[in-house]
């Protein structure tokens, strides 16, 4: 490439300067079939061990249910994966090549990990529509957002998600005035817009009716395959209906793993979690 070409390349209108481009995370490498590796993770708060030598592997495209007593460390585990909490020891890899422990929350999110929080958190003073718009995958740098314009395609995508989560009528409402259940849906919608490789879903059906639960279940099942999903839930009917691999967490480490049937049989699980 000669100078003029290089110069031309540099000045192309459809091109941005290198340093203005969003930081691309190293390519997600799932050659071994696993998308998430958590190894020997421990974390404690003021001396209280919330996660204790936790090991967990998630396959690509898998839908994994995590259950376990209150305080077992499920949410904390998600905090670690998404960069909110730094573990005291252990390692966490996204695919083979991405070390999650070196990354900040937005980098992790951009690398392709999306999360729905246990306590629904949405942007209360933005409209439902904007909540979805902001969550949409794509460039998130300062300059990119300053110049971003919604394409028709993107609008359709938002509409589609709005329909999916049943908030079409509320699209211009401030998210803050949604009811608890509606906020749960909106969070799910935001997750969909993000279109992440790995979805972490913390108690999505809390506060939903049975039927809504079913719909959520269908949604999640349909997403699995394309996406990997880690789901935390206390509703056993819901977990059972998904009929997938289940991991039981207790006192910060894995107590049992297997299908729902297997886990149900485990007396330890029954004792600490399921009850009679």
């Amino acid at each position, binding site marked *: 490439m000669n100078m003029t070409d290089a110069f031309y390349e540099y000045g192309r209108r459809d091109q941005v300067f290198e340093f203005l481009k969003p930081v691309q995370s190293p390519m997600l490498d799932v050659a071994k079939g696993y998308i998430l590796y958590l190894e020997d993770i421990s974390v404690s708060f003021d001396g209280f061990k919330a996660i204790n030598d936790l090991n967990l592997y998630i396959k690509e495209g898998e839908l994994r249910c995590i259950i376990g007593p209150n305080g077992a460390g499920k949410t904390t585990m998600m905090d670690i994966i998404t960069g909110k909490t730094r573990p005291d020891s252990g390692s966490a890899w996204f695919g083979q090549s991405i070390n999650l422990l070196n990354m900040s929350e937005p980098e992790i999110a951009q690398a392709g990990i999306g999360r729905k929080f246990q306590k629904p958190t949405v942007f209360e003073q933005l409209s439902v529509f904007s909540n979805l718009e902001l969550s949409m995958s794509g460039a998130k740098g300062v300059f990119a957002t300053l110049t971003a314009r919604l394409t028709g395609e993107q609008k359709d995508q938002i509409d589609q998600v709005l329909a999916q989560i049943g908030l079409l009528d509320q699209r211009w409402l401030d998210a803050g005035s949604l009811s608890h259940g509606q906020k749960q*849906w909106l969070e799910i919608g935001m997750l969909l817009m993000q279109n992440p490789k790995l979805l972490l879903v913390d108690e999505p059906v809390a506060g939903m009716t049975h039927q809504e639960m079913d719909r959520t279940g269908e949604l999640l099942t349909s997403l699995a395959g394309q996406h990997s999903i880690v789901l935390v839930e206390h509703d056993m009917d819901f977990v059972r209906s998904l009929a997938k691999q289940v991991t039981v967490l207790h006192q910060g480490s894995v107590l049992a793993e297997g299908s729902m049937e297997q886990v149900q049989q485990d007396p330890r699980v029954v004792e600490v979690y*399921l009850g009679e």
Partner: protein
Amino acid sequence: MLSIKGLNQFYGQSHTLWDLDLEVIEGACTCLMGRNGVGKTTLLQCIMGLLPVKSGSIEFNGAPIEKLISEKRAPMGIGYVPQGRQIFPLLTVEENLQVGLPARPDRSNKIPEFIFELFPVLAEMMNRRGGDLSGGQQQQLAIGRALAIDPKLLILDEPTEGIQPNVVAEIGDIIRRLNEEIGLTVLLVEQKLPFARKVADNFCILDRGRQVATGEMTALDDTLIKRYLTV
């Protein structure tokens, strides 16, 4: 025990509750049901005085309370477990439980022992900040906190949300026990039918801010469920 008539409530311009009636019978457990966003939480907040009502009456034990300021209602014997737990995040578990003690009729300033029997985890976590507890632990704390004021009427907004199955079952048992043994009246918002069926005597269904059906739990049949509780 609690009787609501013709209640109307607005959020700014939007009319949320419409001429709503509700009867909570003394000593019984009434379950308030309805889809997301129909106004269940709003109704409970009106009862607690946390939201202003536009019109209608709320009577507790025959006394009108709709004009009363919020903090007068707890001492009358109404315990409230809000949706989303609303723990005081920086108070310790113990302090969370102590906050309501002055509202107890006997003015005792000791946390009743039975709360720790019900929720042993609270005893374990006595000196931790409420906000640090896990979601489910907070929920247990919220129930314990409401019970600490020795209420006559206990109002619970989706109390099983986020709680592990064996504790859910236990909470069910506890509600029944409190209800049966000490005659505690309960008003419950619950989405999960099996749980509702297990603990409640009566039901009341809301739809878009209106009361659309009410009766004994046994009368809650598939048609009603299909019409008002499925999407």
